[in-house]
């Protein structure tokens, strides 16, 4: 729908709300106060601990409030720094830099990535500098760049590969240098032949551009590793346990910006799409831009039934437009009223379609039944934590059971119980 729409930069807005936590790990602490003047790219939060990431001012202006914003992921109000733009869009002192990242030391490169606040931009938002520092006993010999973009509707990575492949290749080379690798694989689903053709023309010879079969969820980390190399990541393990490391195309592009120009992650490409929006677009947008502004830039809603942060399979349904674009927002999908199916859930008929569909080899029907009874401990024995909520089971269920919601519910119950145990 938005696949043939070139990336357009969204014009500067007046208000930006930057959440202090846009990553997995410890929340970052604000280091600016109300009334402070900030410049574009100036750090405004300070990471707490190793698994954490700072945020930066998306433009120049003044800090209006240290308040809250509704997170598009949890739907809860989270702390955020509200910045009123001054329209000058001036860079923070010293930025942007001009340097050759490939002559830098790996430690220096890692440090640049860390201070730029880069997190996994496919949506998981795990701090990238942590992922790129595997423990010494784990040997990583396979680096895959994830250009699969298997989630329906989303086209941000595809456009990035077509239009800004230099940044992607540059970022890949930096990661290869950090990991001490001679080769990397850029995996693209075979429904994007134009991208592969172009990338193969331009790719340096140490980067192999490979096709993977179109099959949701091909772009899930573990599935992609299997598709590219045939290696399996053990249950409860990380890709590094299989000697592999995966980064999203958007993330490697951000790594290039951070190392070559010292530019922090304050801007990303995201897809605004679906039948419920007037003009589907791929936009380059600053982190912290209010969603309502983005919707307006795309011509406004039209007969919208449901607004989802992310794609239709794994995205989070939004309760209101009063939220912002974050580092991990790969897209906003707006379904029309007609597309939002309303159907009552019935009992599980044990047909087994979800079992066939599950890419992790779990038994989703059992998990959903345990979910009805709040039996999270038994669900843990059924490998609840291996489920990454791709949504294939729910999509295929003829009894319209909200299986993924049951899984999320069980995970929440389990988190609650372990928090209570810790507290007691």
């Amino acid at each position: 729908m938005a696949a043939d729409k070139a990336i357009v930069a969204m014009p500067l807005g007046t208000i930006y709300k930057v959440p202090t936590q846009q990553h997995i790990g410890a929340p970052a602490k604000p280091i600016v106060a109300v009334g402070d003047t900030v410049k574009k790219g100036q750090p405004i939060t300070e990471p707490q601990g190793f698994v954490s990431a700072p945020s930066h001012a998306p433009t120049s202006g003044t800090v209006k409030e240290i308040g809250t914003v509704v997170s598009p992921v949890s739907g809860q109000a989270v702390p955020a720094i509200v910045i009123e733009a001054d329209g000058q869009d001036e860079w923070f002192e010293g930025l942007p830099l001009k340097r050759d990242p490939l002559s830098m030391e790996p430690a220096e490169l890692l440090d640049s990535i860390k201070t730029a606040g880069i997190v996994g931009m496919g949506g998981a938002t795990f701090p990238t500098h942590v992922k790129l520092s595997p423990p010494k006993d784990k040997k990583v010999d396979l680096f895959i760049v994830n250009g699969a973009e298997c989630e329906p509707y989303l086209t941000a990575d595809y456009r990035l590969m077509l239009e800004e492949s230099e940044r992607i290749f540059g970022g890949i080379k930096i990661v290869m240098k950090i990991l001490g690798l001679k080769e990397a694989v850029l995996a693209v689903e075979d429904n994007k032949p134009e991208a592969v053709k172009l990338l193969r023309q331009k790719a340096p010879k140490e980067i192999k551009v490979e096709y993977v079969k179109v099959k949701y969820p091909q772009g899930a980390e573990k599935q992609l590793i299997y598709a590219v190399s045939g290696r399996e990541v053990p249950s409860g393990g990380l890709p590094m346990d299989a000697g592999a490391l995966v980064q999203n195309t958007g993330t490697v592009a951000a790594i290039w910006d951070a190392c070559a120009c010292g530019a922090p992650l304050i801007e990303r490409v995201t897809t605004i799409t679906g039948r419920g929006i007037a003009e589907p677009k791929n936009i380059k947008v600053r982190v912290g831009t209010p969603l309502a502004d983005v919707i307006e830039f795309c011509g406004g809603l039209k007969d919208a039934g449901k607004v989802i942060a992310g794609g239709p399979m794994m995205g989070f349904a939004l309760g209101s437009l009063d939220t912002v674009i974050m580092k991990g927002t790969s897209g906003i999908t707006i379904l029309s009223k007609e597309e939002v199916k309303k159907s009552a859930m019935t009992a599980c008929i044990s047909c087994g379609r979800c079992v066939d569909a599950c890419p992790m080899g779990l038994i989703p029907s059992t998990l959903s039944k345990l979910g009805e009874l709040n039996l999270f401990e038994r669900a843990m024995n059924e490998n609840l934590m291996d489920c990454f909520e791709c949504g294939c089971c729910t999509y295929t269920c003829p009894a319209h059971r909200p299986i993924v919601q049951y899984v999320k519910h069980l995970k929440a119950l389990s988190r609650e119980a372990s928090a209570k145990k810790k507290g007691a």
Partner: protein
Amino acid sequence: MMASILVTSITGLVLAIILVVAARFFAVEVDPTVKAVLEALPGANCGGCGAPGCAGYAAEICASDTSEFKCPVSSPEAIAAISAILGRELGACGGTRVAFVRCGGSCDKAQQKFEYQGIQDCKAAQLVAGGSKLCAYGCLGLGSCVTACQFDALVVGENGLPVVNLENCVACGACAEACPRGIIELVDKDTKIVVACVSKDKPKVTKDSCEVGCIKCKICVKNCPAEAIVVEGGAAVIDQAKCTACGVCVEKCPTGAIAVRLAN
């Protein structure tokens, strides 16, 4: 034929002897007092006493020498029976407190943020964009408290809010535990005047989301002759020890967040 009967009989006999011997040597000694107390307890395993279940509480009360009795479910007869078993007088528990739902935002009074579809459970619904009610503190009305109640003391009423059956409620607190928004509180049975709102939102937000929310105007604080009401951070809180149930606050409250409890 004979052989098979013989083999079966002998096997049975041998196994029976083993079982008898094992039962004698490996028997777990149970204190007869604990057993008797356990039998006298209601056996609902509701957790209202704080112990994991009735058996846990029976062991706890036998091991201590307190006169405080924590089971809210036991009838006066049962308490008398347990007192007799333990040989010491136990104070009455239960019957003095009941569950109270601190939200008045019924379907017609509180705004919905969106239409919720999915698991009919408040904890699960809370995970979807923070719940469908515009007010982030109000009752979601899916009845997790009703499911948690073992005593048939809660139903979700027609207005979308849970209603406590005061006859049946034993104040075990299972509903309060089940509520993801912490709306249910155990209050004294005689409590007359209550604030049916826990919102910490700014007044304007509350005003926009619910007709009967506490807007922190402090009119009740200013008018209370007993100085029993405070508004600090969240919604108004009445100090029940000071409250004389004069009803001035109920009359003055502009939104109707303060109510006479037993009247509704």
